[in-house]
């Protein structure tokens, strides 16, 4: 029994820290609330889509910014997509960098763009690790007691 309580505590504390540190915002909570017994994997599925999509976009961004003559419209289009998907899952820090990134695109500021790209790659990597850890904790808890506390 102690194992379950500890895991629950861990899960709650970890989740809280993610919100406090700005990795996640209320939209993530909304996602969790959309999940239920008939759609038990909803959050994991959407977040997995986010991972795939982001990795693709980050690759595209690296390529686009590596060109002799940078097409800022194209870069902006990719950032716009990344901003949208990060916003949809509540990945707040990623979303915020995207906002600054888009401003640099508008200014056609290559240095600013490169800096933003690095930042967004970092933030993405961080939130990916955090979410994977979160899911792992949830799985552990689920295995230990057969149900996940969603709130």
């Amino acid at each position: 029994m102690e194992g379950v309580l500890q895991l629950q505590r861990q899960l709650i504390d970890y989740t809280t820290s993610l919100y406090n540190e700005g990795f996640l915002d209320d939209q993530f909570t909304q996602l969790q609330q959309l999940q239920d017994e008939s759609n038990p994997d909803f959050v994991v599925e959407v977040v997995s889509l986010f991972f795939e999509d982001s990795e693709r976009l980050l690759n595209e961004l690296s390529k686009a910014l590596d060109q002799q003559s940078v097409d800022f419209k194209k870069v902006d289009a990719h950032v716009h997509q990344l901003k949208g998907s990060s916003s949809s899952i509540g990945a707040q820090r990623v979303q915020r960098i995207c906002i600054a990134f888009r401003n640099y695109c508008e200014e056609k500021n290559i240095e600013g763009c490169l800096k933003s790209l690095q930042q967004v790659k970092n933030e993405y990597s961080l939130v990916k690790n955090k979410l994977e850890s979160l899911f792992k904790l949830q799985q552990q808890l689920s295995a230990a007691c057969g149900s996940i506390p969603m709130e």
Partner: protein
Amino acid sequence: MGMAAESQFHVLAVDDSLIDRKLIERLLKNSSFQVTTVDSGSKALEFLGLLEDDQSNRNQLSVSPNNNNQVVEVNLIITDYCMPGMTGYDLLKKIKESSSLRDIPVVIMSSENVPSRINRCLDEGAEEFFLKPVRVSDVNKLKPHIMKTKSKDHQKPENEEKQEEEEAAPKTKEVQSPQQQQQQSSNNNKRKTMEEGLSPDRTRPRYNGLTVVSN
């Protein structure tokens, strides 16, 4: 109205983002809507039976010759604004220009709070404009628009129709609860974007009825 199959409304959701399609689908299904999602405006028109050739001149409310020759009824269309090719605005225009589709309520979604964009869509006949990410509280605002259209079709005196619907469909009751909407008004990020995107237009009467500011 007693049968589950009949009382389910069908929403067509249009968005080029897979993540957003998944989200809107779940939101809508959780509110007991039947959902079809497509990833572009042209696919939406195809689904609605509005093709580029003369097949668009049909007088029925919505006909889709592509789905095994069955009549597909769509009660509401919700579309993203920013899409490659045909934007949500273009799609809205095409729908409103079509005699067979113009009565279907259309809602636009966008991640960007641009007042001129919002007004343009409303002027073109969109019922609502939702800021993304879309929430349960937004989806709760859809049913009244569908019911409004339905009562127009039936040509009954409006209040009589409304009363019947309110009694027969508990779902509508939930939707119209003001407390629910107020609880969900911790849409801080929405309010923030409203302020960021700002224009003096905020106080125009047009905004008061809108989802963009949730009170």
